[in-house]
């Protein structure tokens, strides 16, 4: 069942700026961003390093708060949320996939997923989550016993195990070779399609934009352009 992509925004940024002191200078990472992640869409945030895309992802994921402007999750204003409120937002609604997987080395694949499903009210069966990413056979392996691609797929299973509304991926293929990277993107694609999870993938790799419903390009802390992709291609046919 293909997910329905609507234009209902699930996460919305309005005139968001973010500046922070870096030593003696103030870095203006975001300089007024208006942008929304829509229900069920697969979105690629494209930008070179230093463009502000990581800052944007941190704000979207409730790891950071904007200096000015507004951040809305559905009809909740998160612009001035406390650290405690942001934790609850992440806990209930957001799944993360990181460039370096960030699995807990002392836990097996299954346990890494349980780590999240245990605290989610309507969590998925961890085995099902791992099955979805094609790791049904590797449940009891420790991270050190798996390849990078496998580890990243465990991370995806972990991210979706809480059935999040939003899945945020930070350079998910950044540490992987092309072939493995395709497998990982495929897993993300399937999650987006089958579960209808709104997905934002941050990357500096323009080729990945081919799998997205929309590609948002960021440069110098601003949205440079937003392109609609009428016919996304399956990740298997992407090359870089």
């Amino acid at each position, binding site marked *: 069942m293909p997910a329905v992509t609507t234009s209902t925004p699930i996460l919305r940024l309005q005139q968001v700026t973010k500046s922070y002191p870096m030593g003696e200078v103030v870095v203006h990472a975001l300089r007024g961003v208006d942008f929304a992640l829509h229900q069920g869409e697969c979105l690629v945030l494209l930008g070179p390093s230093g463009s502000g895309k990581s800052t944007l992802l941190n704000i979207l994921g409730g790891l950071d708060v904007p200096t000015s402007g507004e951040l809305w999750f559905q009809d909740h204003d998160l612009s001035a949320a406390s650290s405690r409120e942001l934790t609850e937002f992440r806990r209930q609604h957001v799944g*993360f996939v990181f460039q*370096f997987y960030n699995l807990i080395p002392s*836990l097996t694949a299954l346990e890494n997923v349980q780590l999240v499903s245990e605290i989610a009210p309507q969590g998925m069966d961890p085995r099902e989550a791992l099955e979805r990413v094609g790791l049904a056979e590797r449940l009891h392996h420790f991270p050190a016993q798996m390849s990078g691609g496998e580890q990243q797929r465990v991370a995806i299973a972990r991210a979706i195990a809480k059935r999040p509304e939003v899945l945020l991926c930070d350079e998910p293929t950044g540490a992987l070779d092309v072939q493995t990277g395709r497998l990982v993107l495929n897993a993300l694609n399937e999650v987006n399609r089958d579960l209808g999870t709104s997905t934002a993938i941050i990357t500096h790799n323009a080729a990945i934009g081919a799998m997205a419903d929309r590609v948002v390009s960021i440069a110098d802390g601003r949205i440079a352009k937003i392109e609609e992709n009428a016919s996304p291609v399956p990740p298997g046919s992407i090359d870089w």
Partner: protein
Amino acid sequence: MLRTLDIKVWRELLRLRGQVVAIAMVIACGVGVYLGLSSTMHSLQRARSSNYAEQRFAHVFAELERAPLHLIPRLQAIEGVQVVQTRIVRGVTLELPGMVEAGSARLVSIPERGRPELNDVKLRLGRMPQPGHSEEVLVSEAFFEAHGFRLDDELPAIVNGSRVAFRIVGVALSPEFTYTVAPGQLFPDDRLHGILWARRKGLAAAFDLEGAFNNLALRLAPQAHEAAVLAAVDRILEPYGGRGAYPRRDQVSAFFLENELTQLQGFAVTIPLLFLGVAAFLLHIVFQRLIATQRSDIAALKAFGYHDREVGWHYAKLVGAIVWLGSVAGWLLGGYLGSAMTSLYADYYRFPELPFQLDPLSPFLALGVAGLAAGWGTARAIRQTVGLAPAEAMRPPAPLRYRRTLLERLGWVQKVPIGLRTVLREIERKPWRAVLSVAGVSMATALTILMAFSADSIRYMLQVQFGLSQREDVQISLLQTRSQAVLSEIRNLPGVQHAEPYRSVPVEFRAGASVKRVSLTGLDPAGELLALYNTSEERIPIARGGLTLSRKLAEVLGVRPGDSLAFRWLEGARSTHSATVAQIVDTYVGLSAYMPLDELASTLGEPPTLNGARLLVDPSELASLYAEVKATPMIAGIAERDRSLRLVQGMLDENMGTMIWISLSFALVMAFAVLYNTIRITLAERSRELATMRVLGYRRREVSAILMGEMGLVLLVAIPLGLWMGHVFSSALVRSPGYDTEQFRLPFVIYPSTYAIGALGILASGLVSGLGAWRRLDRFDMVEVLKSRD
């Protein structure tokens, strides 16, 4: 100019300041305790040896009834004897101005002219008594000060049954009475008991000892055979009521001082080593971690052309700086502790001078040992930096391998929560770290018990001695043995409600090669005022048909109930007898032997007599009783039970309390340092995991529970283990030679409150270290942690 690498040393010290300070504090405790105790020992030893030498403290002592002075050539002729000193020494009752209680003193003769050849007095104030002036006395300094006497004050006394007014002409100290306790007492009571010195002629007349002596002191040649001299003296004095010659080490004051030094020495070695061992372990874990995180720095340094040696030296300097910091703090702490303890000792051990003296080598010895311990702890980590090839160091370390813990593999733990599972696997991956953390914290816990238990034991001993065992209000001793008829006189003294007679005689027990001279006390079998307790702490009546011995005396003689024991009466007929050991009782002070009063009399072949009594007294008439006693020449002394209790209690509260709090805080420093480092290392090693969990939506409380989990487990194991170890160490300590002596024993008692204080103190130090880490969780930069590859 500071080299760049040295600047890095300073930066690292600053960056790791929390851990550096914690480790330095442990080193400071170790070095401080060592310097404090060893300098106290050194000060006491120096004061003792110069005092013993300057005042010509004798090597051998003997007491006897009465011997003629013409024995001197025979004593002089014993091989190895250099100097013979004969004296007159007797106990006297004092009528102390403004005091209800009767005091007592030992009256010691000095030669009619000049100074004593042995056991010389050190004149502190005034002058020596003049020849021919029998009323002039020197008094011991502590006694003089306790009463606020002035020179020329009068001191009324009862000497050999007659009232005499002494006049204080000088104040003195003697090596013989460095520690002054009344016979049979453990603690000095300077208001009630003192030493008086008077010219010999007057004393001889007063005690009917003209041309005779009742006390002997000898100085031996360096190569003298002590045992042979003692035996020869005993043979010569035997017909004159000799009570057995004994060497200097058994002389009461010398014994207490030596025993104190032995105890100090035991602590001065073991406790610092404990602290330095813990410091070594802490340095080990901190440096393992430091070097693991600085692999790439090390690689870069080596790539630039720094030699292995220089890189290793760089880290060694860091260790050295921590040791130096801790040692300097320890020197200051040790100097303070040492001078405080030395001046505390000066109140109980009276030396002409007891200056605080530091053995100039000991600070360096402490520094050296601390350095060795630190080197031992960090050698492996530093060797790793030296051995690391630059290319290898550039690569990240191999991924950590984990497995299910043994408990899980065995299927014993079905559903361990995930957080706890990570904690258990961490522990299983580095079991030694956990074991050593547990060891450190349990040592600290044990230390709290070890340091505090002696107060419990002494309190318990007081309860038993003065609450359960001695049930009289006052005890009087008679100048001479009297017939039972005198008991009615005693019962008629003011306020006396009940009186129980006793008769104590000096005897010499002989069992195989063991010979022991003690006093054998005849007790009224129906008496209630001296309760005897068996080794299971049950009250038992005095056994009929033989001897009741105290445990220590039975041990010394090597006898058990049912054995037959020979003894010789050292007075009167000096007859030899034998009796069966009927039972063993537990006592804490001295060596005791008892018999039913009538059995003792019939054994000695004399009618029932007494030379003392235990009394119950109407408290409102205590003052008139004292007044009457002072006026009754047949009574030699009177001792009030409550006074002894109050005295010891006061001493405990004043000194032990402070000592216990100081050592408790040392133990807590140790626990804090171990726990703080454990948690900081966990935080450092697992910060990426913990930050990931925070990003995934774990609440701060949940993440800190995992962080505290390891510490919690350590505490969970270490506190009960430490309490048990404290129990074991303490019970071993009370049985050690310094605590289980013929003069006194400590019962082994630890009150629940002591366990509770120890456990709560350790928990509190865990809480403090946890709070420090908790604050850090707050400052966690989740974003930063996620960007970097571990």
